[in-house]
C-alpha cells in the first residue's frame, strides 16, 4: 500500500515546474524553461508508467483491483464529517488517466519545443502547460468529489490561459472568455450537484459514495424536489458539469472556438485530456448514477448520442482543419458518454463502461496524433484552411504517414486501436438501446467520411500556391508523431477488459462479428465516398453543397448555435438584465437615497425663509410663542 507514496510526485513535479518557470522564466533564455518543463514532464511520465506497471501487472488481482490511497490530508474542514481532503487515489481509471495525461502531455511538451520555437512568451507557454498538467493530474487522482471540483476549476483556468495565449488577438481573447464562461456555467451545475449530494449523503468521499451497496443513500430516496428525486437532481447537475467540460450538446459551443489556442494546446487540452474530464467524472460517479439515478443515466446516454451525431454532421462542412478535428472530438466524446449511458454494472454488463474508458484511452492517442499532425501541417503552410492545402504528401512524408494512420484508426479500420474500442461501444449500445446503436452506426460512417475528406484534400489533390516550399518539421515535432502513431496502432491490443472495468474485476469478451463487420464496412464505405469526392479536384462536392442549399449553410454555420448564445448573452443578459439593473440602481435606489438628501435640503430651504432678518418678525414670533406657551399652560395644562 505504502509503496505508492511516490505517486504524489507525479502532480507535484509539474506544479514545481509551473512555479519555477512562471516566476523565473522571464530571467532565463526561453529554451531553458522549455527544457525544464519537458524534463520534468518526462519524469512524471516515467513515474506514471511505473505506477501503472506495478498497479496493473504487479500482483495478483483475482479479487479485483484495490483502491489505494497512498496520500491524503485534510485541506479544509466544513463539519466533522464534511471536509475537503487532498490526496491521491489510485484505482484502475485514475491510473489509466495518469498514463494518458502524462503521455500526451510529455509528447506535447516535446513537440512544442519545435512548434513554439521563437514565439514570444515561450516560457509562459511552458509554465501554463505545466499548470494545466498539474491540475489535470490532480483532477484524476482526486480522492473526493470536492478535490475534483477544485482541480476542475484549475483546469478551466489553465485552459482559459492557454486558449488566450495569443492575448493580443481579439479572437483568441474572445474564445478564451467564451470557453471559461460556458464551462463556468456548467461548473455551477456541478457545484450545486455536489452540494445536493453532500447534503444527502454527508460526505464528499468517493470511497464512501461509490462503494457498492453502501448505506449512505438510505435516507436519500425519500427526498425530492419538484417531483424529481434529490439524487437524480444531483447526478444530472453533476453531469451538466461534466457536459460543460466535455463540450456535450448544448454546451459544446466553446470547443470549436477554443482552437484559437496554439495547436499543441488543442492537442493536449481540447482533444486528449481536459475534454475527457467530463467522461471521467461520469465514470467516477458511475455506481451512484447507475444505481441511484437511472434517469440521469438515460439522459447521459441520449445527450452523448445526439452530440456525436450533431458534431459529425457539422464536421463534414468545415474547412478549418482544426475545427474539423474539434467537431470530430465532440463526436467521439459523445461516443464515450453514450457508452457510459448504456452501460450496466459489473462483469459483462459493464461492457459500456469498459468500452468508454477504452475509447477514451485510444482516442487520446489518435486524436492527439491528429492534432499534432495538423499542427505540423499548419507549421508548414501557415494556414488553417483546407483550401490552402493540397498535395502535401510529397513535402511532409512523416506527417503524412502518421496522419493517415490516425485517420484509419478513427475510422475504425482493424486492427488499429480505434476499431476495438469503437466496436465495443457499439456492442454495448446494441445490447441496451437500439436507437442509440443506430445513431452510432451512422456516425461511424460519417466519421470515416469527414476524416478522409480532410485527409484527401490536404495530402492529395493539386499543389497550392505556397509562400515557401513546405518542409517536414524538426525532429522534436516528428518524434511525438511517430510515438503516438505507434501507440494508436497497438493500443487496441491492451487487455482493457481485464484492467479497467466498472466493478474493478476483469471479465472476458470476444469479438462480435455481427457488429464488427458492418461497422468496418460502413467505415470503409465512408472512406470510399471521400476518395471519390476529394481524391482529385472535382466539382461534385460543390454541386452537392448547392443542392443541399439551406441545410448545407445551416450545417456550415454550426446550426447557428453561436448566434443563439450570443443573442442570449449579449442581448438578454447585457441589455435586458444588467443594463436595467445598473439603471435601476443609479436612478431608483440611489435616487431614493439622494432623494432623502434633496428633500431635507428643500425643507431646510423653506425653513430658512423664516430667518428673514426682519427684527419685528422675530419679535412677533417671540411674543406669539410666549403667549401660546402661556395660553397652553394656563388653560390646558393647569
Amino acid at each position, binding site marked *: 500500500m505504502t509503496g505508492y507514496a511516490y505517486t504524489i510526485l507525479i502532480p507535484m513535479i509539474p506544479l514545481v515546474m509551473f512555479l519555477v518557470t512562471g516566476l523565473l522564466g522571464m530571467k532565463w533564455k526561453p529554451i531553458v524553461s522549455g527544457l525544464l518543463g519537458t524534463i520534468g514532464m518526462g519524469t512524471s511520465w516515467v513515474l506514471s508508467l511505473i505506477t501503472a506497471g506495478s498497479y496493473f501487472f504487479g500482483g495478483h488481482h483475482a479479487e479485483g483491483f484495490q483502491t489505494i490511497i497512498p496520500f491524503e490530508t485534510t485541506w479544509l474542514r466544513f463539519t466533522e464529517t464534511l471536509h475537503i481532503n487532498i490526496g491521491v487515489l489510485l484505482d484502475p481509471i485514475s491510473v489509466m488517466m495518469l498514463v494518458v495525461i502524462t503521455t500526451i502531455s510529455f509528447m506535447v511538451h516535446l513537440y512544442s519545443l519545435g512548434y513554439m520555437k521563437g514565439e514570444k512568451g515561450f516560457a509562459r507557454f511552458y509554465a501554463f502547460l505545466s499548470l494545466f498538467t498539474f491540475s489535470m493530474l490532480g483532477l484524476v487522482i482526486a480522492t473526493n468529489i470536492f478535490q475534483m471540483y477544485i482541480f476542475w476549476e484549475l483546469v478551466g483556468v489553465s485552459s482559459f490561459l492557454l486558449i488566450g495565449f495569443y492575448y493580443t488577438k481579439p479572437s483568441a481573447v474572445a474564445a478564451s472568455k467564451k470557453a471559461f464562461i460556458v464551462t463556468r456555467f456548467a461548473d455551477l451545475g456541478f457545484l450545486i450537484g455536489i452540494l445536493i449530494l453532500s447534503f444527502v449523503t454527508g460526505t464528499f468521499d468517493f470511497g464512501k459514495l461509490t462503494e457498492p451497496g453502501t448505506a449512505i443513500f438510505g435516507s436519500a430516496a425519500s427526498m425530492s424536489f419538484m417531483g424529481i428525486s434529490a439524487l437524480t437532481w444531483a447526478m444530472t447537475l453533476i453531469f451538466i458539469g461534466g457536459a460543460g467540460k466535455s463540450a456535450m450538446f448544448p454546451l459544446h459551443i466553446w470547443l470549436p472556438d477554443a482552437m484559437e489556442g496554439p495547436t499543441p494546446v488543442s492537442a493536449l487540452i481540447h482533444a486528449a485530456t481536459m475534454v475527457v474530464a467530463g467522461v471521467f467524472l461520469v465514470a467516477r460517479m458511475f455506481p451512484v448514477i447507475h444505481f441511484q439515478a437511472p434517469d440521469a443515466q438515460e439522459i447521459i446516454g441520449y445527450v452523448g448520442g445526439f452530440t456525436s451525431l450533431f458534431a459529425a454532421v457539422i464536421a463534414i462542412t468545415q474547412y478549418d482543419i482544426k475545427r474539423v478535428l474539434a467537431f470530430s472530438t465532440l463526436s467521439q466524446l459523445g461516443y464515450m458518454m453514450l457508452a457510459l449511458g448504456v452501460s450496466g454494472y459489473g462483469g459483462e454488463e459493464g461492457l459500456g463502461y469498459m468500452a468508454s474508458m477504452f475509447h477514451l484511452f485510444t482516442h487520446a492517442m489518435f486524436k492527439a496524433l491528429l492534432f499534432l499532425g495538423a499542427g505540423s501541417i499548419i507549421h508548414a503552410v501557415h494556414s488553417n484552411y483546407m483550401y490552402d492545402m493540397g498535395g502535401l504528401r510529397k513535402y511532409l512524408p512523416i506527417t503524412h504517414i502518421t496522419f493517415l494512420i490516425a485517420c484509419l484508426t478513427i475510422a475504425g479500420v482493424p486492427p488499429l486501436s480505434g476499431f476495438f474500442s469503437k466496436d465495443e461501444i457499439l456492442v454495448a449500445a446494441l445490447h441496451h438501446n437500439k436507437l442509440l446503436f443506430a445513431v452510432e452506426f451512422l456516425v461511424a460512417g460519417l466519421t470515416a467520411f469527414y476524416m478522409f475528406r480532410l485527409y484527401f484534400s490536404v495530402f492529395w489533390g493539386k499543389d497550392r500556391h505556397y509562400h515557401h516550399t513546405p518542409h517536414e518539421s524538426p525532429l522534436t515535432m516528428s518524434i511525438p508523431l511517430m510515438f503516438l502513431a505507434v501507440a494508436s496502432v497497438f493500443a487496441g491490443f491492451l487487455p482493457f477488459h481485464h484492467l479497467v472495468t466498472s466493478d474493478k474485476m476483469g471479465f472476458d469478451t470476444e469479438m462480435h462479428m455481427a457488429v464488427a463487420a458492418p461497422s468496418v464496412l460502413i467505415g470503409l464505405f465512408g472512406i470510399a465516398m471521400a476518395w471519390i469526392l476529394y481524391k482529385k479536384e472535382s466539382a461534385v462536392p460543390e454541386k452537392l453543397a448547392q443542392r443541399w442549399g439551406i441545410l448545407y449553410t445551416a450545417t456550415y454555420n454550426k446550426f447557428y448555435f453561436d448566434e443563439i448564445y450570443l443573442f442570449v448573452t449579449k442581448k438578454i443578459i447585457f441589455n435586458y438584465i444588467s443594463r436595467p439593473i445598473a439603471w435601476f440602481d443609479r436612478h431608483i435606489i440611489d435616487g431614493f437615497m439622494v432623494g432623502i438628501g434633496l428633500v431635507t435640503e428643500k425643507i431646510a430651504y423653506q425653513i430658512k425663509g423664516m430667518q428673514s432678518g426682519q427684527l*419685528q418678525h422675530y419679535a*412677533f414670533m417671540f*411674543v*406669539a410663542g410666549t*403667549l401660546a406657551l*402661556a*395660553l397652553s399652560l*394656563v388653560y390646558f395644562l393647569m
Partner: protein
Amino acid sequence: MNVFLFYLFSGIILICSLLTITTRKILRAAVYLLCVLLATAGLYFMLNYQFMAAVQLTLYAGGIVVLIIFSILLTSHISHRFKHPDLVKLIMGVSTAVVGAGLVIATLLSHSFQAGSAPELPVDMTVIGTQLLSTEKNGYVLPFELISILLLAAMIAAIVIAKKDKNKNSEI
C-alpha cells in the same frame, strides 16, 4: 382726590402710550413718551415712593427722553411723517397685544392678591442709602456694583460704537 388723581394719571399713561406708538411724527412720539413717564412718576408719588419718583423724573424723563430727542434730531427731519404701517404688521402687532393683554388681565383678575399687613416701612433717603450699600440682609450692594459696572461698560460701548470711523469707507 387720590382716586381721581390715580385715574387721571392712568388715563394720561394709557392715552399717551397709545399716541406714542400711533403718531406719525417722531418728535411728537417723543413728547408723548415724556408724558407717559411723567404720569408714571406721578403714580410713584402717590404710592409714597418719592425717591423713586424723583429718579423717574430725572433719569427717565430728563435723561433718556432728552437722549432720544437728540438722536431724533440727528437722524430725522422733524416734519417727516411716517408711512402707515404694513397691514400684516398691524394685524400681527394688534392681535398679539390684544390677545396678550386679554390673557394677562384675565389671569390677574382671576387671582386674588393678599394685601400685606405688615407696617409700612418709611422710605426716606437714609433707608435707601443704607440698604443700597449694605451687605447685611436686605442689602443691595452687589446689584448696585453690577449696575455701576454695566453703566460704565454701556458708556464705553456707546462711545466706541458711535465713534466716527477714521476710514470712512470701512463698515461697522
